[in-house]
């Protein structure tokens, strides 16, 4: 069973997996917590979306349910990473030495 859709699905799967891997590598290599949030939780989002799309190509009868999973991920994921970043900033997690600017810290400092 070798059709174009099938091949497209497999390629999408590998592409999504590659993004997941880049997220994993970023999670290990990035120097501080904020950059790890950037790499770790959001590169993995696109990776998961692509793998879900790939599986939808392999099994078109599951497409609706996979679409729902992707939609729910799109709602919940930025919310959790935003709340986490905010909490990290509030408890004063250190930033990497390469950091060039922190306007939030400056503005918080100006206010009483």
């Amino acid at each position: 069973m070798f059709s174009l859709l099938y091949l497209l699905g497999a390629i999408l799967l590998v592409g999504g997996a590659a993004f997941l891997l880049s997220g994993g590598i970023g999670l290990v290599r990035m120097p501080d917590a904020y950059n790890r949030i950037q790499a770790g939780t959001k590169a993995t989002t696109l990776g998961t979306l692509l793998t879900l799309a790939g599986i939808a190509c392999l099994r078109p009868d599951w497409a609706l349910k996979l679409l729902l999973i992707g939609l729910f991920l799109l709602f919940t994921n930025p919310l959790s990473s935003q709340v986490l970043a905010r909490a990290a900033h509030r408890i004063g997690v250190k930033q990497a030495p390469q950091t060039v600017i922190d306007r939030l810290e400056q503005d918080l400092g100006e206010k009483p």
Partner: protein
Amino acid sequence: MIRRLFVTLLLLGLAGVFAGLVVSYSPDETLNLSARYYAEHTAQDIGAANIVTAIIVTFRGLDTLGEVTVLFLTAAIVGLVLSHGRREGGGSGRELPPAGELLGTGTRLLVPLILLLGAHVFVNGHLTPGGGFQGGAILASAILLLLLTDPLRRISHRLITAIESTAGLVFVGIGVLGIVLAGGFLDNRILPIGNLGELFSAGAIPIIYSFIGLKVGAEFSSMLAHLSETEDL
């Protein structure tokens, strides 16, 4: 030190027993007698596609009733134990960091969706994986999200108690109806069995499981609400 040694010896002994169990375990090749009965007769007798649901709600329905009762008792005891340290009204002296606008808006967007998913899970308990217990836990998760966004929010205890007791009464009432109209307590054939795979099939299972779901959700919510009303120590 003696204690550490004793614990280590005990665990080593247990590890030996477990290793023996794993090594000598030989998985069955076919289903055993009761499982074979369930596999062969569920579709005709009960009409539920999900055999686990059929076991929980009808074959072992009485156990489930006991279990829901245990859960009710735990919720009641948690409420009783914590009833002393209750905060008066909403005005606690603590300064809480605000939840932030994004979490507030996101909660208002997500809570209806989570409630909908919970309802879907327990209404479809006889067709897809899931059922009352899972659906109830998902409903309670929605309440949990509300509490996370605004910890000082008060969930109405009266509403929770009303839902909980109504659901319990309906559950028992359907069970008694089973004695009157069909073969015995919690018999699901008080309604037509219907065709396998449709939403209105499997007799009374969807109704029973929906009420179990509401009851479990209300019990978990009451635990969460009681905990969130305690004082800081």
